């Protein structure tokens, strides 16, 4: 790939411990990794293994209990509105605002003028031209999710953190969204950390895959994915693709069984 060699995100020995009524949960333990500038990293693992927790540590919204996260060498201890954008499983478009007003929200919060040129371009790529004045209730699930990605990208962040953004969509829409995301990524060269339940989605999208194991959530394995880009949707039927899929699947299943989940 053509990423720079500079590392954008440095995760150093990060642990996150939640205190609950019945004790403590080590949701992430001793996580050390880095993400290069422009790299697309996917995070997979069994449900409850700490993927979301890790992502929130990277966002600066929930500081890690131990260890540090550095963005461009700067220690992260609060959200970095200019640098980091987030996309969740729910589109989280405000239902009382039109699509355009939703895209304007972060600009209003930051008291900055809206970047019309970029917004127009993103809407175009997202196939949302003509829906600027629609309310989220009038959009399909896939359109809403594209809208929320446009909203995040309109801030021109260097890092995009995505937590199962397509998890609620059907298989066909999901494939469409994957292609859309790759197109946007190729254009914008953002650094992306993408959490997903779907191993094949991770392989299709990512340069690298972090496989996590649960209880405590640790980095079990890192898998490099070297398929050429742009990737075609039929890639998922290639033998190489399937063998990686099997490998990761065994890893995830094994970690679940091993821990008696």
């Amino acid at each position, binding site marked *: 790939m053509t990423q720079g060699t500079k590392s954008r995100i440095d995760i150093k020995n990060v642990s996150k411990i939640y205190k609950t*009524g019945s004790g403590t949960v080590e949701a992430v333990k001793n996580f050390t990794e880095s993400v290069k500038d422009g790299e697309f990293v996917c995070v997979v693992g069994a449900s409850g293994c700490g993927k979301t927790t890790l992502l*929130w540590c990277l*966002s*600066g*919204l929930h500081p890690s209990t131990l260890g540090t996260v550095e963005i461009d060498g700067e220690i992260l201890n609060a*959200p970095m*509105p200019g640098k*980091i*954008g*987030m996309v*969740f499983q*729910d589109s*989280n478009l*405000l*239902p*009382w605002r039109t699509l355009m007003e939703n895209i304007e*929200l*972060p600009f*209003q*919060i*930051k008291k900055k003028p809206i970047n019309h040129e970029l917004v127009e371009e993103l809407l175009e790529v997202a196939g949302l031209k003509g829906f600027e004045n629609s*309310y989220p*209730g009038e959009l399909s699930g896939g359109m809403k999710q594209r809208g929320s990605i446009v909203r995040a990208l309109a*801030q021109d962040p260097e890092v995009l953190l995505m937590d199962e953004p397509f998890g609620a969509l059907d298989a066909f829409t999901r494939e469409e969204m994957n292609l859309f995301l790759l197109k946007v990524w190729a254009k914008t060269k953002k650094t992306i950390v993408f959490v997903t339940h779907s191993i094949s989605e991770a392989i299709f999208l990512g340069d690298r895959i972090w496989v996590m194991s649960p209880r405590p959530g640790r980095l079990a394995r890192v898998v490099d994915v070297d398929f050429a880009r742009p990737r075609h949707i039929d890639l998922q039927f290639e033998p190489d693709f399937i063998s990686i899929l099997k490998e990761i699947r065994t890893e995830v299943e094994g970690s679940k069984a091993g821990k008696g989940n």
Partner: protein
Amino acid sequence: MATDNLAEKIPDFNGVAPIQGGGPVDVSALASVRRAKGFKEISKVLLLGILVVTLLEFILIWTKTPLYIFPRPTLVIKSLFHDFGPLYRQPLLQTVQEFFVGLAFGASIGLALAVLVTLKPGLDIFISPYIIIMVTTPMIALIPFLMLKFGFGMTPRVIAVALASGPMVMINSATGFRRTNAELIALGKSYGATEFQLFRKIRFPFALPMIIVGFMVGSIFGLLTAVGSEMVGGGGGLGNRLVYFSSLVRMANFGAVLVIVATFGVALYSFFTFVNRKYASWQV
């Protein structure tokens, strides 16, 4: 659950996310009555109303029901038009005044408290018990005590209305604020929103439907309390007239006052339903 808060104990009025078990008052159905649509449907509803009233009139005539047991609708309607100026206007104005002053105080304090417990969740457990007590206790019961303190003027009734409506506004608003999706808040924070911006741009609009329902229920409670207080405490107003006319067995006058009270209540309900449709229609 140690963190069990007010929201879980209080009925939900809008089906945003129904709460099991119910609570002191459940008027959820109020906010969801279907509206008659189109000229045809509206005229059918009106026609039925006229039919019911006419039927009542004839039944009362046929059965020779004495006036002091049940006033005939025609007599009530006649009195409404004939006596409005001399008999009903002044009491109506007084009740309206008590009601609005009380609601204004109660609702502002209620809303402010809701904001407070949202921003400082730790305060909730200290404030909530009193709110629960206020919601479950009929504030009319305080009237004799308030009159000892504040005399026969409007003050005791205004206070009672405020005490009856405020907690309703508070509970519903606090529930609305609290229900605000955690991811939406996270999203706002990730864009660097201040606590005030989060409130203005996300929490408040999100809670608006609940706030409106809080106002609706609060104002209905307030009206009940205003009229009830006048019935117990004297000193004018529609409630006082109800007691006065019934004690003199002037049932046509009594019926007319009742109709005025009912109209006031329905007007409040319609107003808040309208506001809800206009400003919070996104939730449906």
